[in-house]
């Protein structure tokens, strides 16, 4: 057995419980397909694509919520382009030294390194500036295109699937890798949700309260790198950042609390993914583009809903103010509670 084959089989052995889960999932969707007569559920690749889409619909807005509210919406785009360089590195190594490694794994590694670099640059210059972000973005993409062009003869796969995403090229292995990324992202956010929220909302107060802001920033950008690589399979490098931003922006229009905005952004993202995949299947269009267009449509509806909500809320405001003025229960005197009407 050759070295690359050994590596591949070692990875497959690691992922084997997930392969078993994927089979189960596929059987379930086949059954749903037969019961409902939905044509798109008769293909195995579609089962995997839908699962990847559902996972992306959770992890992208989950991380995106923290990014958007820190005004870091563009970091996803920058990391997606460096992930493309990672894909190119993987394809290059496979062609030159026959490494047999999934380009998605090399993309994870390169995107994580780029994420740390962006974070370290911002720590030393004391700001996330769009100039350094733009430099990282174009460097990543330039490196990717250069590696692919000098190696064009040895490539058996088109890079289109990485640039634009492709439902039909979601292999069992890449779906299993996505499941691992999903577990890591959800697990880390579940554990550090308090800290990430504090750092996102009020960095200085978080630091005063004893949190290591720079460590949580590093965790944040590395999770972003994982999400970007995971979502790249169906969204493509160019559109992947939209899933981090658009559902979150929509949710912010209609949500009152942070928890609510997290849940709403996941619901909006899942809606966009499922509708987008279905429409793209029946219309024969690229899934990534359709998913983003649906997401933007949902965002537009959320803006309208938010405006209506605010208008209704404004009518209720004087009532709230008078309740506060009458029922101030501060131990230090009612005058504290009865000030500042809006």
């Amino acid at each position, binding site marked *: 057995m050759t070295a690359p084959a050994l590596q591949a089989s070692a990875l497959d052995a690691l992922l084997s419980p997930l392969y078993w889960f994927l089979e189960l999932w596929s059987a379930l969707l086949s059954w749903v397909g037969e019961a409902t007569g939905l044509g798109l559920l008769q293909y195995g690749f579609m089962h995997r694509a839908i699962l990847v889409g559902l996972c992306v619909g959770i992890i992208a807005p989950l991380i995106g919520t923290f990014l958007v509210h820190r005004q870091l919406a563009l970091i996803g785009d920058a990391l997606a382009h460096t992930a493309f360089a990672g894909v190119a590195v993987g394809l290059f190594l496979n062609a030159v030294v026959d490494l047999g490694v999934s380009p998605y794994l090399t993309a994870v590694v390169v995107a994580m390194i780029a994420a740390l670099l962006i974070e370290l640059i911002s720590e030393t210059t004391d700001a996330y500036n769009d100039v350094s972000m733009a430099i990282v973005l174009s460097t990543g993409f330039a490196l990717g295109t250069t590696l692919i062009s000098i190696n064009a003869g040895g490539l058996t796969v088109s890079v289109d699937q990485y640039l634009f995403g492709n439902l039909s090229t979601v292999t069992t292995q890449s779906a299993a890798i996505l499941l691992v990324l999903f577990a890591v992202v959800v697990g880390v956010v579940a554990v550090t949700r308090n*800290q990430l929220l504090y750092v996102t909302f009020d960095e200085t107060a978080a630091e005063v309260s004893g949190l290591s802001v720079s460590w949580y920033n590093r965790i944040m950008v590395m999770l972003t790198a994982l999400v970007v690589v995971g979502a790249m399979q169906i969204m493509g490098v160019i559109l992947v950042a939209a899933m981090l931003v658009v559902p979150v922006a929509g949710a912010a229009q209609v949500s009152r609390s942070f*928890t609510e905005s997290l849940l709403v952004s996941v619901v909006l993202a899942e809606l966009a993914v499922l509708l987008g995949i279905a429409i793209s299947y029946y219309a024969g269009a690229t899934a990534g583009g359709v998913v983003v267009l649906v997401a933007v449509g949902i965002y537009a509806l959320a803006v309208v809903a938010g405006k209506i909500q605010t208008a209704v809320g404004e009518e209720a405001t004087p009532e709230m103010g008078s309740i506060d003025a009458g029922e101030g229960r501060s131990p230090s005197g009612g005058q504290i509670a009865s*000030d500042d*009407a809006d």
Partner: protein
Amino acid sequence: MTDDAVVDLADVAFGYTATPVVEEISLRVESGEYVAIVGPNGSGKSTLMKLMLGLLRPDSGTARLFAEPAHEFDEGSRLGYVAQHASASKEMPITVREVVKMGRFPHVGFGRLSESDWERVDEALDTVGMTAFANRRVTQLSGGQRQRAFIARALASEADLLVLDEPTVGVDAESVDAFYELLNSLNEQGITVLLIEHDLSAVTNHAERVICLNKQIYFDGPTDEFVDSDALARAFGTAAGIVGGGR
């Protein structure tokens, strides 16, 4: 005596570049004091605050917080920090209760808030008179209401040092008075208050002690003496005419 001090700076100097922003700073803040730090724009007030809280390390001299080197101090729950949030326009969807809840984060770490944690949150909301606004989105509040939410966060963390960096910037005049009433009553309950202010009228009306800063300390003493002294004119230069002209 040294061990009682909440803040203890000895001959502290600090500069972001070779030029010092503050120098020759020696001061002590005892538990239960209500101290205001005033000075013109760019006088190093916020830098001094960061040195006191251990967010910056002095280039020379020592900064101690609750008798520990300030940068090593890790009981974050004892510190409450309120910044100029009223003027910041964060569009993040978050309710007043969720903001106050953050005060419990240093206590719970990676865990969930227990029932008693939530009780502390509700008590803090009650103390600042914001119970009726608990489920309101912070962006919908007036500047004064928002600042009271941030005070409540410090109360929920059971902080015994409250540091406020120009908290009333962008808050309407009527709310400012009520805001200082609240600070007074919290100080009477034993919380040490450290107020960084640009608005001199607020300081002279409320604080017990004034530290007047412009790179160095120009005055440190009781508020009455500060009003009579010429420290203001020396520290502020020609800008001294703004006394009483609060925003």
